[in-house]
């Protein structure tokens, strides 16, 4: 059985293989790769639009079907059932489980109780490996990932997508530039781990000082729910905003990514520039998740 739980579990050859497979699905070169007799259970105990819908779309495009739980309130968890029991029960219904859960480590726990493969679709502030794969996939559509300069901007403390992506990029000789408001910097243990992996990590105070040196700018949302009051949230949230003016003099190939949803970090006027790639990025969720689903259920 093959679970997809954390980017830490994957080597570069695994990532490259999955990205190659996603490319085959996108270009229609894998017509025989079907999951017509398979059923995926989408257990989403946290809000999600893109991740949930792209997994459902991916399953449908593979000819398979999906069943879903869309909230804690709609599940037996409100009756006191443990996640472990839910996973054991759903293992009897489906051929794979896709799990989104507010607690970190939930997908790892699920993999211990499941009798079918588990794909982590985001666990708390922890890991989000399928998002990382589609981030890498989007970069690779335009440039080789090796040796580029990537800036991570925003909530790097709680942002699971930033953690997963940074770890994955460490396998590609990327120079990482971290840019975060005070108090939301990348956790020291992750920065240490990245450096131990040989990655050059450069910390910046503001995006203006580095944006002209970047090939990729990965913008994340400040999560309002982390702040004690709305005033302190707005102080931090307004500390950065990508506008067309900010983009003068950037590298021609600069790609702006965002795992979405955005909440004011990117001026909508940026959408019409050649740098904006976040909607393509979201669209890439389908072939990438087709590759993942097919890999664990084939």
């Amino acid at each position, binding site marked *: 059985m093959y679970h997809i739980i954390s980017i830490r579990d994957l080597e570069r050859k695994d990532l490259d293989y999955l990205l190659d497979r996603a490319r085959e699905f996108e270009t229609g070169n894998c017509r025989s790769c079907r999951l017509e007799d398979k059923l995926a259970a989408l257990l989403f105990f946290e809000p999600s639009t893109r991740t949930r819908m792209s997994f459902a779309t991916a399953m449908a495009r593979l000819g398979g079907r999906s069943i879903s739980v869309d909230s804690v309130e709609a599940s037996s968890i409100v009756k006191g059932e443990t996640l472990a029991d839910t996973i054991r029960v759903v293992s009897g219904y489906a051929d794979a489980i896709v799990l989104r*859960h507010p607690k970190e480590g939930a997908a*790892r726990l699920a993999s211990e109780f499941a009798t079918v493969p588990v794909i982590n679709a985001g666990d708390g502030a922890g890991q989000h490996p399928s998002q990382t794969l589609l981030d890498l996939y989007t970069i690779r559509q335009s440039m080789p990932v090796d040796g580029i300069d990537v800036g991570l901007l925003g909530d790097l403390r709680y942002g699971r997508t930033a953690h997963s992506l940074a770890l994955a990029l460490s396998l590609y000789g990327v120079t990482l530039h971290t840019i975060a408001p005070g108090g939301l910097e990348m956790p020291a243990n992750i920065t240490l781990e990245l450096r131990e992996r040989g990655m050059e990590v450069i910390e910046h105070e503001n995006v203006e000082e580095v944006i002209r040196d970047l090939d990729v700018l990965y913008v994340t949302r400040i999560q309002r729910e982390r702040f004690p009051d709305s005033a302190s949230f707005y102080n931090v949230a307004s500390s950065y905003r990508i506008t067309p003016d900010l983009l003068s003099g950037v590298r021609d190939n600069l790609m702006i990514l965002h795992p979405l949803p955005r909440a004011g970090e990117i001026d909508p006027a940026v959408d019409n520039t050649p740098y904006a790639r976040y909607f393509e990025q979201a669209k890439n969720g389908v072939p990438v998740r087709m590759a993942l689903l097919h890999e664990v259920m084939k």
Partner: protein
Amino acid sequence: MTKKDPSGGLIISPIKNGTVIDHITAGEALNVLRILGITGSTRECLSIATNVRSKRMGRKDVVKIENRELRTEEVDRIALIAPQAKINIIRDFRVVEKKGVEIPEIIRGVVRCPNPGCITNTNEPVASAFEVLPKGLHCLYCDWLLKDDIAEHII
């Protein structure tokens, strides 16, 4: 009963049956007792020496517990805060077993993850699990790295 000359330093009685934990990192003796669940309300007969001179360690702590032989899982817990500790099992005043503590590669159910968002801090039927690394304890569920105050988190 044997005694050393008071002018030479330590006076401490041998025990008839039980465990002597020697070479505890100086200052950790009380944490060792906490790990073993020994409090003011338990009934063990104890001898505790702290910050005594040690040729090998400079300073060390020593704990003697009468009528109790430590189990392997208890020894593993002590290893987390006193990696140089030596365990001597005493029967009828004689050392019948002498062993060092060994830090396992993975420790389960011994340390509580400090991350309140970790799934192991819920009512799920799993024990905490940490990989022991030179830089600290790495939670195998949420990836939290526990570097300091390990004794505070021992269950």
